[in-house]
């Protein structure tokens, strides 16, 4: 039997959203581990059920996230993310229709990226970047997904 993927919203176009934000997760033993565990657990639950895929990149002080899936689902989760007090200065860089998903395999891969690797994607300079370049940077980074990730399993296994 093949794996089933839910259809949360019929006939919704595939959408892509990328934003960058500044982390507000406190310093102190355990704080980062607990908050990221919580974010990844929410992503594992919500993104699987809503068939969202993507990657969350962290580089010490900033987040950048790519979300792909049915348009309503992407925006539904983005509203939750926007209201989250663990980050601020959220700037949406890409919000557009996508022909195919750039990263279809992960409910939410979590990557850490040293400044050097992210420098060409530095969120401060991102506003001026063409979206294709931003996306390409994220896809290149995500080639390391197997290192640390929450793979997409559609809700009932997969």
């Amino acid at each position: 039997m093949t794996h089933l993927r839910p259809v949360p919203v019929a006939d919704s176009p595939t959408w892509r959203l990328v934003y960058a934000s500044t982390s507000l997760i406190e310093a102190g033993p355990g704080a980062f581990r607990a908050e990221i565990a919580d974010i990844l657990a929410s992503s594992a639950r919500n993104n699987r059920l809503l068939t969202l895929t993507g990657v969350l990149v962290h580089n010490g002080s900033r987040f950048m996230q790519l979300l792909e899936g049915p348009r309503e689902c992407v925006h539904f989760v983005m509203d939750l993310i926007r209201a989250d007090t663990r980050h601020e200065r959220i700037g949406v860089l890409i919000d557009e229709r996508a022909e195919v998903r750039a990263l279809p395999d992960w409910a939410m891969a979590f990557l850490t990226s040293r400044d050097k690797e992210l420098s060409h994607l530095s969120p401060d300079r991102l506003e001026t970047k063409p979206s294709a370049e931003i996306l390409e940077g994220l896809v290149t980074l995500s080639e390391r997904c197997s290192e640390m990730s929450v793979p997409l399993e559609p809700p009932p296994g997969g």
Partner: protein
Amino acid sequence: MGLSSVSAYARRLKGKTQIDTTQLQFLNLEELEKRYGDRWPQVRGRIIETCESFISRRIRPEDLLLRAANGFIILPDPNREECAEAFTRRIKLDLEKFFLGTDYLKSLRLSAETRNIALQDLFSALESEAFGRAEAEHAAARACVDPPAAPLPDFSLRFESIWTMRTGHVALQRILPFSVIDGVGSWGHQIPPSSGGDAMVMEFDRQVLISAAAAARANDAPSRCALAIPVHFRTLASVKHRLPYMACFKEHAHGRVSGLMLHVCGLPMDAPASVITEITGVARNMTRRILCEADAFSMRPDRFDDARVDIFTCAAPADIGLMERREVALRVFNARLRRSGAMAALTDCRSLGHVSAGAAAGFAHFAGDSVDRLKRQPEKAYRLDPLGPQGP
């Protein structure tokens, strides 16, 4: 199905590390497509809608029914009691009967399967080296903006024998972390809430677990004592602290060392029964047997009825007189625990008088300076008679 109902369901999954789902898949839609030709889109729509309404009448409002490209996915209410396999069988049978009695559904073939979705992948991610690097980079970045965070106290482990009076043996040792803070030695979770709160308590418990598992591995022999590893109830109480702890347990202890037991500490005796049951349930998910710190004088045993604690550890009061005056109440307390399948250990026995008073009050196990001295390594099981002439 609206997005908010999916989200509400997802929220109810919070804290669950796995869930069994039912997948129903139509096997021969392509065949039917050929048969119906141009009429197929309408027929297909009708099949899906009829089946959806049929299934939704057979599930509970708390279950979630999702459409899939060629079937349905049923996510059960996380608190459903019916076993997943039985539920899947029942729904498949009902649907097949329904197909037989409905003209345009007669030739539809269905497969049904129970599948488990687990957060196992998340666990390995949380314990990966890359995560450790991300954590270090976060700390370095925050150091530029925040005042320095209070560090985790350095600690070393001590092993305290828990003596079973009936057998005269020590087959269990509890682990006590010992730290020196500002030149003063202290035991256990001496972490003020202002210096990192629950996250720091969790991190302390993680580090204790890693050290304890290493000590247990180094001493892994059939005759070794079981080890009780302390974990603060706050680490297990919320999902975000519980997950990293469970990930750590899976990585460092699960399946590698047997004879580990979690010892839940600091649980407030007036916590609601539901909270107690949840926290002890999380602990029991990791080790088959668990201990729980309790106050014999204020504990309400009925609140622990569903907690399935194996051994309660109760600190003896410094004043033996108090135990003697409350002997009847303590005896009732111990009898009540025994009826529910648990036992109590009297810890902090500073003198043999504590052991005798505890024995008179019905305690089964004893620990403390007067029973045996603290060890720096776990021990093999051994015979001990603290009351005899060679006692400490």
